[in-house]
């Protein structure tokens, strides 16, 4: 106990009074609403403020709700499709813009790639609404193509970031070494550059996937009738009074995001391999 007291009174250069307390409170405030949200998804009764016992009935209700099933599958399909396209396009763009020295038009390319990050989603959303409405009138096409294109464009900057970051850490000497060891440019790309880019590409895909899955505003303005995704479905439901079924859906959604974020975290942390 004495040792403890001595340790506590020792001068620490990193200590600032009150900071630790505010930080801990911030973490609590950050997680408390989510924890409560998750907890009441297991509530026996319909109340979201009074605990009435453990039950999985709201999960059952969610699984049996054909509309929830529909919108979830559509969301997953859209996220996989858009993230795949975005990853391929972002990989090509990263190869064209990273470690190649400055070239004319580079700034414009950067600006275009990052533009979806700068412009508020609501502005992109109504811009797409106007554009899509005009095309619909011209072509009569009302399929998922609009959503795929919109989500792909929106995911490109997110997929581009980790791919570019990964590529930047690659030493040019590695490709020089491959060429020195009789690899043709294509072989050097196939055996050295591409395998080393894989973590970045995977991370890019995951980011794109999560972003597409989260996108609500753009989807809301681009979708045609019957093209609700999970987020737009939830947005519509939140206006009414909600049951713990919504908590159950949100919890499952959270779990999926958490899994992907964890995987992303580990992939981007594993360096040098």
């Amino acid at each position, binding site marked *: 106990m004495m040792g403890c007291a001595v340790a506590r009174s020792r001068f620490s250069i990193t200590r600032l009074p009150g900071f630790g307390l505010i930080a801990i409170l911030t973490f609590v405030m950050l997680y408390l609403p989510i924890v409560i949200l998750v907890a009441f998804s297991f509530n026996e009764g319909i109340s979201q403020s009074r605990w009435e016992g453990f039950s999985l009935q709201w999960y059952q209700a969610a699984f049996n709700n054909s509309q929830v099933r529909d919108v979830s599958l559509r969301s997953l399909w859209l996220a996989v499709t858009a993230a795949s396209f975005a990853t391929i396009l972002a990989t090509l763009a990263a190869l064209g813009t990273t470690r190649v020295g400055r070239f004319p038009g580079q700034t414009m390319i950067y600006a275009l790639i990052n533009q979806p990050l700068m412009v508020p989603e609501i502005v992109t959303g109504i811009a797409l609404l106007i554009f899509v409405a005009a095309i619909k009138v011209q072509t009569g096409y009302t399929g998922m193509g609009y959503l795929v294109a919109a989500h792909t464009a929106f995911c490109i900057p997110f997929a581009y970031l980790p791919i570019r970051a990964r590529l930047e850490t690659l030493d040019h000497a590695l490709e020089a070494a491959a060429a020195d*060891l009789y690899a043709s440019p294509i072989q050097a790309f196939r055996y050295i550059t591409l395998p080393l880019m894989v973590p970045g590409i995977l991370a890019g895909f995951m980011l794109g996937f999560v972003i597409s899955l989260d996108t609500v505003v753009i989807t809301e303005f681009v979708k045609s009738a019957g093209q609700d995704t999970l987020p737009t479905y939830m947005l519509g439901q939140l206006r009414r009074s909600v049951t713990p079924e919504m908590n159950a859906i949100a919890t499952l959604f959270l779990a999926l995001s958490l899994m992907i974020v964890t995987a992303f975290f580990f992939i981007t942390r594993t360096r040098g391999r």
Partner: protein
Amino acid sequence: MSQEIEITGLNKSFGQGAAAFHALRAIDLTIATGEFFTLLGPSGCGKTTLLRIIAGFEEPSTGVLRINGKDVTGLGPDKRPINTVFQSYALFPHMSVAQNIGFGLKMLGKPKSEIKATVAEMLQLVRMEAMADRLPSEISGGQQQRVALARALAPRPRVLLLDEPLSALDLKLRKEMQSELKRLQTETGITFVFVTHDQEEALTMSDRIAVMSAGEILQLGPPQEIYNAPVNRFVADFIGDTNFLRLRLRVKAVAAGEAVLELPGGKQASARLPASISPPVGSLVTAVIRPEQAEPTPAGQGEMQAVVASATFFGTDTHLHLLLDDAQGFVLRRQNRPDQPSPAPGTKLGLTFAPGALRVLED
């Protein structure tokens, strides 16, 4: 000996017009088969650019490069019988040690059995058999160095290029790898072209050294010649420690390549005078003496008189900083012996030096 590498009239410049930077100027150079050849110079002197041109990573602006008599000037690095050990080693981080070593053979389309046998042989050569399946990130810096060597040697190149391969290692490991490199070169008989800025490394390992500065080769020759007979002030200054003295030329050409200089204090001494320069009699010239080639004598004796200004202890020897009669500085290196304490500041002593130690240099 046959000529392995032949470089004629090679120039390299980056950029164009007035802003162009001339990295290499008018390089003519031949390197013999089986030679341990070193390019030595400070950073920015063009030695790495020259190495990269030999490897094929850069193209010369003008000039011709022949390897074993064949013009390879336009060929890419993948088409030259040359391998490189990179300064950063550039080991492929996603491949095991064995895969790294076998990469060149795989790219050459060699059969699997042959690759396996050669990799085993190379692992043995660099004493890394136990590490075959490790990743580069799982072995030490010295071990990475060995793998880089084995990888470059595995395709049995005619020439091995080494770009400051020891600079990332600590002193002890560096000494060890120096003798290891020398052993590998003798065992394989491959021509080594070695780039370094470390003059001691160059002197101990090389058959011949090219001293470079500002894109030009200043002097080319065996280590002894470079050390004992530097052609100009830059070489003398860059290789080892040297005392530079401004002395008056009294007599020219007593015999071929000799002159008589007036020392501080008025005595005269003979000095070597390179045939390439011809200063007028009576003018001031730059002369050099290595610190270990002068010896102290009791005061009043010897060629020059000096006062001790300070002494710096270096373990094996002590550097005495002296002031000569005409106030020029002079460093004298004296081996330390327990029975000979270094003289206190203010002590007067004389200096003598062996014939041939004093040389006149081009400025």
